[in-house]
């Protein structure tokens, strides 16, 4: 996409933030963060073909580590943010390098274990992590009053989302994106073509996990509270469902899936209360059985039929 489209998207999405009230802007910020996570997870799962359940753990590592570094250890934010990002990258490498030696679904098992361990550490972390209640009501010192608040903070989240989108979009169209797709479809053939399979897998996992961590840092200041249930493995399942329902491997699919599954509970709550997850589960089964390429696949099929009917 041309650079002016990114700018236009940034201006448009940021402008929306100025028309929202307290509750709606909270909903909007969380929607933007879900889309950010979905874009990253789509790259990992849909394009690089790795089934991992650690995305929300890294989201949480980013959120918790920036809060702990800035408020427990009192580091200045410009230092805490890169340190927290580096911590995410190091932990992602520590998960990816050993998991990479294993075939098949062992990455899924290893990342489930990692996510559960992360929650246990949060619950038992005492003063540092705040235990089961998490950390709340942390305030930046007055020196940071120049930092963006209100719609300007929403603008920052729009920037995080679009930056993630733009980097992944460019990567997908580079040699790295093609290497990822090749490794997903046929690792032996990719290796024979000169792709370093191990390095490609580890890079894709580390990169997308670090992006999740960066989104988590923004999340830490949305509610000014972080607690363990937000980062549970249930949400990683939900993220996977978003990608599958929207259409794995397609950026538009990730966005459609994230927006749809984010708003479904709000629309459905008058009908079925808080049991919206039942609808998610049924949707996933129906989509995989009927249209494995997701809603984007449905759209493609309709578009093709529509074009086919018209004389060329």
């Amino acid at each position, binding site marked *: 996409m041309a650079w002016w489209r990114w700018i236009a998207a940034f201006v448009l999405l940021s402008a929306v933030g100025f028309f929202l009230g307290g509750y709606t802007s909270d909903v909007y910020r969380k929607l933007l963060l879900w889309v950010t996570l979905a874009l990253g997870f789509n790259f990992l799962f849909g394009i690089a073909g790795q089934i991992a359940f650690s995305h929300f753990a890294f989201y949480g590592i980013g959120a918790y580590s920036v809060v702990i570094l800035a408020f427990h250890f009192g580091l200045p934010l410009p230092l805490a943010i890169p340190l927290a990002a580096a911590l995410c990258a190091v932990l992602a490498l520590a998960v990816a390098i050993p998991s990479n030696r294993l075939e098949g679904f062992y990455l899924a098992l*290893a990342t489930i274990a*990692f996510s559960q*361990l992360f929650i*246990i550490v949060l619950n038992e972390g005492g003063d540092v992590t705040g235990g089961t209640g998490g950390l709340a009501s942390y305030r930046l010192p007055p020196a940071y009053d120049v930092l963006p608040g209100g719609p300007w903070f929403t603008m920052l989240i729009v920037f995080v989302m679009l930056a993630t989108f733009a980097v992944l979009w460019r990567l997908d169209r580079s040699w790295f994106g093609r290497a990822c797709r090749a490794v997903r479809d046929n690792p032996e053939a990719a290796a024979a073509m000169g792709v370093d399979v191990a390095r490609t897998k580890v890079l894709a996992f580390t990169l997308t996990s670090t992006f999740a961590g960066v989104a988590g840092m923004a999340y830490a200041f949305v509610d000014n509270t972080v607690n363990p249930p937000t980062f549970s493995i249930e949400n990683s399942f939900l993220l996977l469902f978003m990608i599958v329902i929207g259409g794995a491997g397609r950026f538009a699919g990730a966005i459609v899936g994230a927006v749809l599954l984010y708003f479904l509970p709000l629309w459905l709550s008058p009908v079925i209360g808080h049991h919206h*997850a*039942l609808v998610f589960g049924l949707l996933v*089964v129906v989509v995989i*059985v009927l249209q494995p390429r997701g809603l984007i696949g449905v759209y493609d099929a309709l578009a093709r039929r529509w074009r086919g009917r018209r004389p060329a």
Partner: protein
Amino acid sequence: MQDFLELIVSAAASGCIYGLIALAYLLIIRPTGIINFAVGEWAAVGAFGGVVALSTAKLPYAVGMAAVLAAMFAVGWATERIAVRPLVERGAPVLSPILALLGMLVVFRESISIGFGPDPFPVPYPLGFERFEIGPLAGSRHAFFIIAATAAVFGAAWWFFERTLWGRIFEAVAIDRRAAALMGINLRRVAVLAFAAGATIAGLAGLLVSPNISAHFLMGLPLAVQGFSALVIGGVGRVEGALLGGLLIALAESLTVRYAPVPPGLAFGVPLVLLILFLLFRPTGLLKPRGAH
């Protein structure tokens, strides 16, 4: 010493539960290559089957148990027909049924949540929970009941795989699907039976564990995680591996809770740490699969 032996009995009982869940994974993964994370929810369905058959309908334990296991056989059968067979027939990659089964996991859990609400339900003990002693070993009657039932299941599984034609058929499919199909084996029937048997065994595990922990709609996922940890530690290729892995995990967990100077919450992490260590250093598990001879 007395204290240690009691610890061993209660650890063995939880280890048997993990072993049964691991066996449910193994029965499905061997012939089909599908890792089914919904086995934990099957255990929850079995536990709530116990609530309906034993607490509500007040059936005698043996009759209620038989009814629950028969129902679980049907649940496993239906799961395969709905979420797996259409994908296998289309020639979809093996990832597709795994994702569809994750969807089923949520469907099972939310159905339980809608049907029974968020409160835990008590399930009656078959023999009570009074103290019971066999020589130096002492524990609750229920612990011994779990151990005996698990021994019976693993004995039956051993007999099935070693002594029956259907067991041989399962092994043949596990070793080489194409060759097995060319020998005239009906792969569809093997797959549907694997799912039905897996659901029955997972349901049994849920029924057995539910008097101790109460039936609750969120009980499935922890069991699913313990079960695959047991499976990886024991080795995916062998039935005995599932039981061995389950016992090892439960023992490590109990010893940590009892003797290690860490908060009890951290002890929940022991199976996960064991799993990660095994994935790092011995991904094939303790027992090597048998060759194709």
